[in-house]
C-alpha cells in the first residue's frame, strides 16, 4: 500500500506538471490574490505583513488545487469510464484517491515559490525565513494536511455527479474560515472555531510561524494529527460511500 501511495503520488505530480498552460494557472492565481492584498494593504512599512499575505495566497491555491483536483479527478475517471475499474482494484480505494489529493497539494508548492518570488521581485517583500528547518518541514506538513482534507471531500464526491461544482463552491468558504488572507480577528468569532477543524488553518499557521513567528512546531504537529484524523475519516467514508454507490449502481453515471 505504501508503494501504491508513493508511486501514485509521483505519477500524479508528474502528470499535473506536464501541461505548461495548466501550470501557468497554478502560478497566476496566487500571484493575483497576493497582488490584491499588496495593493490593498499598501504596507510598505510592514514587510512581514506582506510576507504573511504571500504565504496565505500560496496556501489558498494549495486548497483550491486539492478541492478542485480531487473533485475533477473523480469526475474525469467517470468520464473516462475507469472509476469502476479503480473501485474494483484490490488496492483500497482510499490508497488510490489519496495520492491524487496529496499530489494536488504538492503541486501547490509551485504556487508558494511563484508567490514568494513575485513578492520579492516586484513588491520588495524581504524573503527572510526565521526558522528555515521548521519551514522545510512545515511546507510538506501543510501539503499533507490539505491533501488529506481533500481525501475526505473526495469521499463525498464518489456519490455525487456534480462534484466539480461542489469543489469550486468550497474554495472561498475555506479561505475565509482558515484566515489565509483575511485575519480571523476581523471575522465573527464562530468562524475561527470552524477553522480549527480544517487542515489549511493548521498548515498556514505552521508555515507562517516558521517564516515569521517563534513557535512553528506545535502547528506542524497539529498538521500531522489532523492528517491522520482525515485519513481515518476519509478512508471510512470512502469505503461506505463506494458501497452505497455500488448498491445503487451510480458509479458509472456521467
Amino acid at each position, binding site marked *: 500500500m505504501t508503494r501504491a501511495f508513493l508511486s501514485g503520488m509521483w505519477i500524479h505530480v508528474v502528470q499535473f506538471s506536464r501541461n505548461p498552460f495548466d501550470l501557468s494557472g497554478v502560478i497566476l*492565481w496566487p500571484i493575483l490574490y497576493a497582488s*490584491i*492584498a499588496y495593493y*490593498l494593504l499598501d504596507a510598505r512599512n510592514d514587510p512581514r505583513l506582506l510576507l504573511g499575505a504571500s504565504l496565505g495566497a500560496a496556501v489558498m491555491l494549495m486548497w483550491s488545487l486539492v478541492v478542485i483536483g480531487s473533485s475533477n479527478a473523480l469526475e474525469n475517471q467517470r468520464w473516462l469510464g475507469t472509476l469502476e475499474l479503480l473501485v474494483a482494484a484490490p488496492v483500497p480505494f482510499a490508497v488510490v484517491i489519496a495520492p491524487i489529493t496529496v499530489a494536488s497539494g504538492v503541486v501547490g508548492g509551485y504556487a508558494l515559490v511563484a508567490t514568494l518570488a513575485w513578492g520579492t521581485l516586484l513588491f520588495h517583500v524581504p524573503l527572510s525565513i526565521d526558522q528555515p528547518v521548521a519551514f522545510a518541514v512545515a511546507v510538506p506538513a501543510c501539503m499533507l494536511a490539505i491533501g488529506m482534507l481533500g481525501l475526505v471531500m473526495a469521499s463525498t464526491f464518489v456519490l455525487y455527479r*456534480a462534484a466539480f461544482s461542489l469543489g469550486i*463552491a468550497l*474554495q472561498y468558504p475555506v479561505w*475565509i474560515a482558515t484566515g489565509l*488572507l483575511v485575519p480571523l480577528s476581523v471575522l465573527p468569532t464562530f468562524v475561527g472555531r470552524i477553522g480549527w477543524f480544517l487542515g489549511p488553518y493548521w498548515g498556514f499557521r505552521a508555515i507562517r510561524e516558521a517564516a515569521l513567528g517563534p513557535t512553528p512546531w506545535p502547528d506542524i504537529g497539529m498538521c500531522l494529527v489532523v492528517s491522520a484524523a482525515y485519513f481515518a475519516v476519509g478512508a471510512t467514508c470512502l469505503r461506505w460511500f463506494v458501497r452505497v454507490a455500488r448498491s445503487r449502481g451510480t458509479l458509472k453515471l456521467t
Partner: protein
Amino acid sequence: MNALRIFVVGGLTSYRALFNWISPWVFIPHTLGYPVFEILFFAYLGRFANVQSDKFFLIGNAFMAIAITGFFGMGNAIGGERRSQTLSTLLASPANRFALFLGRAVPSICTGFLVAVLAFTICSFILDVHFAASELAGLAVAGAVSSFACTSFGLCLGSLGLRGRSVSLFADMIGGSMLLVSGANVPLERLPGWLRAISNIIPLTHGIAAGRGLAAGRSFAQVGHELGAEALVGGVYLVLGVAMLRLLEYEGRRSASLEAF
C-alpha cells in the same frame, strides 16, 4: 427567422439538458455560494486593510459574478461541444454560428444575472449595506450594460475553443485577472499606470465605475460617459468575437483540429 429559431429552441434545449444533468436544487446553491463568499471575502479583506467601504466591494464583486457567467457562458458553449465530441458534427450543419452559440450562452448569462442579484441581496443584509430604490435601478442598468460587454468578450474567448482545448481554464484566468485589473477590489488609483491602461480597454471597469457612481447618488447624465464607454467596449468585442468565430472555424476545419481533445 431560422437563426431566431436556432437561438431560442437550441438555447432552451441546451438549458433543459443542463438540469437533466444537475438538479436545480443543487445547481442554484452552488452557483450562489461562490459569489456570496467572494463578496464576503473581499469585503472583510477591505475592512482589514481599512480601504473603501463594504459597498465598494459589494458592488465590485456582484458585477464580477455577472462577468464570470458572460465569459463562461460563451466559452463553455463551444468547449462543451468539443468535450462531448459533437463539435465537428455541429459545425457541419448550416446553422448560423452566432445564433447557435449565443442561444446556448444567453440562458446561462440570465441565470448568472439572477444569481448576482441574489448574492448582492444576501450580502447587503449580511454586511448591513443599504440602497435606495433609485440606486438599485441604476445598478441594474449598469449591470445589464456590463453583462453585454462581458458576453461580447466571452464570445472572443469562446471562439478560441474552436482551436484550443483549455478555453475554460483561460477564461478562468482572465476572470481572475479581472478581480485585480477591473477595479472590482482594488481602487484604480492604487494600480500602476500600465495596469490602469489595460483596465480602460477591458469590459467591466467602466460598468463598475458607473454602478458605483449611481449607487452613490449620481444621475445617469453624470455617469453617462462611463456607461457609454462600457457599451463601446462591448460593441468592439462583439465585432471582434464574430470575426474570430468565423476565422477560427475556418482554421479549425483547415487544420482538422476540431476533434482534438
